[in-house]
């Protein structure tokens, strides 16, 4: 079908719309109210679980693990000092323990330098010693003695206190809570935060760095919420500013702003009614992108309407002609943007699918609201006389005419444009091929977020670590773990894991913990503290009795490492950082060792978030390729259908490959990893960038159908919509610039990569698109 024919259908629709404008408005109001009913039910979550498409499986594994070993949530205070045995530091540790235990719910006990119960083997039996039972000694020599004693305990050095005495943990055990993590963290974190930040714990001798699952989850939620609210608020201000700047009318500001708010509320409301749970960080992408697109759609219509209104002075007729000019192109850009966003459904990552689906729906709603409200509300008002200044220039402004002149220059240097364009694209290819996949959650969040910075400081310390995994060994018979042979194999496995590249080593000691440490310590204690007995006993009954003694004496730790019936146990391995490829290799090696050492175990293997990240790594690569591939194919098909020609579709695709290569190249050369968030950028930018190509190509085709001359059609298009393309790109870039100032690394990357991609796409549309059309002549022969 010819573009002119399609445009005429839009013209007819516009006339119908104006004739029944009240009915359209009523329909929109009812639609909005229905959607908004769902808004209170909207659930937005924020957590790592949102990234896992197979979260149910992950959760099942986690539940299975927790059903055996219980919850491992603790509240932690990492103490950093020049000397943690300084009396002032010890006193603070003591006070901190008391205050937290007294004021924070679920805290049932504290483990710190000040509350140690250390069993020591003696000739007669053993003695349980609390080195600071009577408080902090005044005599420095006494403190030195205690320091030497604590540092002589294998189970404490580089576990509770670093060998250089600059770091120590204060660990608050939390009772297992039956309510959800969200409910529990809201009770645990605020009072703990108040104590940690109180003046009584401020000193130049030490620093307290809090950590723990419920504590950091609370901080993450608060930090993310603040980011989301502030970015959306800034986004709204930016939107209003650009609307005012570009449209210079109250109606031009109010209508698109109202359309955006209503469209977003309606979309999110209906999604809530359908029981769809969203992601808080990703919501920012949806909202800001919707705002940008809304402004873009509005400007396309307003500019088209104004051009005709300046020329004719006929308000309603100008509205109809405006819809005729841009209605089809806008609808088509909506479809391609939706296709780009919907390609995330092929990605297989939960939050990506949500943002893809919800943004596609929001974009459609934005179009619906804009194309109902703007023409109808623009039709209200008086007609004016044609503006003589614009009649001769067909309604074009000085800026429009400047665009036309720029177009002439581009066409004049078409060969140079082609060579430069393709050279840049080729130069980007090695970079694209060098993109590394690495889903480091800490790197995604970035250290500009205060709590992440703090956690990273702990991670880099001798005592802390951010990532860990567990090696589960589960038998189907009770007491299997008490078998000395099994325990010795666990020792062997721990020793091997200690040699792996990603395993954290503190003070020469690999950070691998399991029940064997407890058994060895107890065996040594029961044998006059003789180091020879720091080993697994050969007698299973002795192992049983050691474990029993430990447990009934109040040693709760044992069930952190073994199941209650002693059929399962695990090794906890702390990592020195996160490098996806290294991790995958390490984990494969561990799996192979587990198979070798525990062939008769019912279940044996690696569990934990790192394992999930490793699985997700491969999934992300496949998912991203699928997303980009899907958006590429779908947009290509749509272009072919829209322009009714394979050749035109192929030509229109080339300027859209350019920004993708540009983004990919910068990521590759700049060492920016492909992760759950950066994976969004390329398909999204392709879906948005194609809009300008469609507007431009569609306009050229329309004019070609009228004049049958490529050069004239291209120059007419530069003049008529060239300025609008710049305006929409500026708005989109401004919206994405808001992300650049986010303290979350991932959002910052979305920001600058999108700005680069969109700017690249605009340049490609101004240069490659017209030159390719001029050279390949896709719409048929010219009239001579």
């Amino acid at each position, binding site marked *: 079908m010819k573009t002119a024919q399609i445009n005429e259908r839009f013209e007819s629709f516009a006339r119908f719309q104006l004739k029944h404008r009240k009915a359209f408005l009523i329909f929109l109001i009812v639609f909005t109210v229905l959607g908004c009913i769902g808004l209170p039910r909207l659930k937005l979550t924020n957590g790592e679980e949102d990234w896992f498409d197979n979260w149910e499986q992950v959760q099942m594994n986690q539940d299975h693990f927790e*059903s055996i070993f*219980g919850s491992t949530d603790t509240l932690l205070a990492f103490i950093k000092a020049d000397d943690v045995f300084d009396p002032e530091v010890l006193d603070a540790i003591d006070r901190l323990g*008391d205050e937290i235990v*007294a*004021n924070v*719910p*679920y805290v*049932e006990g504290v483990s710190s330098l000040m509350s140690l*119960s250390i*069993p020591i083997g*003696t000739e*007669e*039996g*053993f*003695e*349980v*010693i*609390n080195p600071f*039972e009577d408080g902090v000694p005044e005599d420095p020599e006494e403190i030195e003695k205690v320091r030497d004693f604590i540092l002589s305990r294998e189970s404490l050095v580089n576990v509770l206190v670093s060998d250089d005495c600059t770091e120590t943990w204060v660990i608050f055990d939390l*009772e*297992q*809570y*039956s309510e959800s993590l969200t409910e529990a963290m809201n009770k645990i974190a605020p009072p703990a935060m108040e104590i940690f930040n109180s003046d009584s714990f401020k000193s130049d001798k030490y620093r307290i760095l809090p950590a723990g699952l419920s504590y950091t989850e609370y901080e993450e939620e608060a930090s993310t919420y603040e980011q989301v609210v502030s970015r959306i608020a800034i986004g709204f201000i930016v939107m209003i500013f650009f609307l005012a700047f570009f449209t210079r009318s109250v109606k031009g500001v109010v209508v698109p702003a109202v359309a955006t708010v209503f469209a977003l509320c309606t979309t999110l409301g209906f999604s809530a009614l359908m029981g769809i749970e969203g992601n808080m960080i990703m919501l920012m992408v949806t909202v800001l992108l919707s705002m940008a697109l809304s402004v873009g759609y509005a400007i396309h219509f307003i500019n088209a309407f104004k051009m005709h209104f300046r020329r004719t002075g006929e308000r309603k007729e100008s509205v109809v002609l405006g819809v005729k000019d841009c209605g089809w192109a806008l609808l088509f850009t909506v479809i391609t943007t939706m296709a780009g966003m919907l390609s995330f459904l092929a990605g297989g990552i939960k939050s990506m699918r949500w943002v893809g689906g919800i943004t596609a729906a929001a974009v459609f709603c934005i179009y619906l609201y804009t194309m109902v409200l703007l023409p109808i509300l623009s039709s209200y008002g008086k007609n004016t006389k044609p503006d003589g200044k614009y009649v001769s220039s067909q309604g074009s402004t000085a800026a429009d005419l400047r665009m036309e002149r720029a177009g002439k220059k581009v066409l004049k240097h078409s060969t140079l444009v082609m060579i430069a364009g393709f050279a840049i694209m080729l130069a980007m290819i090695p970079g694209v091929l060098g993109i590394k996949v690495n889903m480091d959650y800490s790197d995604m969040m970035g250290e500009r977020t205060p709590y992440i910075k703090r956690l990273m400081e702990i991670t880099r310390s001798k005592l802390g670590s951010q990532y860990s995994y567990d090696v589960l060994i589960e038998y189907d018979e009770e*007491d299997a773990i*008490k078998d000395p042979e099994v325990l010795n194999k666990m020792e062997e496995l721990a020793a091997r894991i200690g040699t792996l590249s990603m395993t954290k080593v503190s003070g020469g000691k690999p950070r691998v913990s399991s029940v064997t440490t407890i058994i060895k310590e107890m065996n040594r204690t*029961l044998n006059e503290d003789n180091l020879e007995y720091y080993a697994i*006993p050969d*007698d*299973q*009954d*002795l192992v*049983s*009795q*050691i474990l*029993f*003694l*430990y*447990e*009934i*004496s*109040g*040693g*709760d730790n044992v069930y952190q490492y073994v199941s*209650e*019936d002693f059929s399962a146990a695990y090794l906890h391995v702390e990592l020195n950082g996160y490098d996806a490829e290294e991790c995958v290799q390490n984990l494969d090696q561990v799996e192979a060792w587990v198979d070798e050492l525990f062939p008769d175990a019912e279940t044996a293997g690696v569990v934990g978030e790192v394992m999930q990240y490793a699985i997700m790594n491969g999934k992300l690569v496949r998912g991203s390729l699928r997303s980009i591939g899907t958006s590429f194919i779908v947009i290509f098909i749509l272009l072919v259908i829209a322009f009714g020609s394979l050749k035109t579709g192929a030509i229109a695709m080339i300027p859209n490959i350019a920004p993708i290569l540009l983004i990919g190249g910068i990521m590759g050369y700049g060492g920016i990893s492909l992760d759950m968030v950066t994976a969004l950028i390329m398909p999204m930018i392709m879906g948005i960038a194609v809009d300008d190509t469609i507007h431009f190509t569609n306009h050229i085709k329309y004019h070609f159908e009228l004049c049958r001359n490529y050069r004239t059609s291209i120059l007419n298009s530069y003049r008529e919509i060239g300025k609008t393309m710049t305006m929409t790109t500026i708005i989109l870039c401004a919206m994405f610039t808001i992300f650049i100032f986010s303290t979350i690394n991932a959002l910052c990357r979305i920001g600058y990569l999108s700005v680069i991609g969109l700017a690249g796409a605009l340049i490609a549309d101004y240069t490659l698109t017209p030159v390719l059309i001029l050279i390949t002549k896709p719409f048929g022969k010219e009239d001579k």
Partner: protein
Amino acid sequence: MKKIRILVLALLIALCALMTVSAEELTGLQIIRESDNLPQPDTSSVKATLVIHSKKGNEKTRQVIMKSKDYGDVTKEVIVFTAPKDVSGVGYLMFNYPENSDGTKKDSENWLFMPALKKVKRIASSGTEAEGNFMGTDFTYEDMGDRAISKDTYTLLGEEVVNGVNCYKVKCESIARTEKDPDRIAYIGTEDFLLYRCEFYDRHGSLHRVLECSDIEYIDGYACTKVMKMENVQSGTWSKITLSDVQYNTSAIDDSLFTVAALEQGRIR
């Protein structure tokens, strides 16, 4: 490691001498005193079954033989595990000393026998772990011991029927406020001054644990609470101690049972 303390089931396995005092004459403190003053036997021998129910519904069962003798200046107690099988024979011998008038107390003496080690080990501990879990159950050592009346203040809240028994409802508030559960509401029988229920409230005033006492029998004139169930309402776990073969002031308990040699020779049956 936490210190092993003598299991004085004083509050719960108390003797009853029925007091005929009318409720209106009693304050919270008086009721607690009456309960605390119930006569106790000099010697006791019981078998106890400990059932520990985890949040996930798993149950562990342990059986022990407990024998004790009050010598006035010291209470000697021996505990030997009989089940599960792989820990059968593990035993403790404990000498506990009463609190002096000035609030000081001599450290208890403890010995441990592990059959697999084939020798007795003396456990020396300078501290007390009153709030530690008793034998891995939901009971604490303090629950099982004899808490000094001077540590709390008492308020009579009224009367309430517990399992068909009319009880005084007494609020016990810790003076130190350092305990995990500083407040308790004890339900003490108006007729027998025995404990029927006790609710433990944590530092934030939330109900933490609930103790239910049942199957109370009189043996040789002494009241014996045979079943004690402690439920942790916050974590969803519970533990039950069931007593059997209870013997008071029996001549079968001779002094030689409370020795290291008796433990090693496996004489505690």
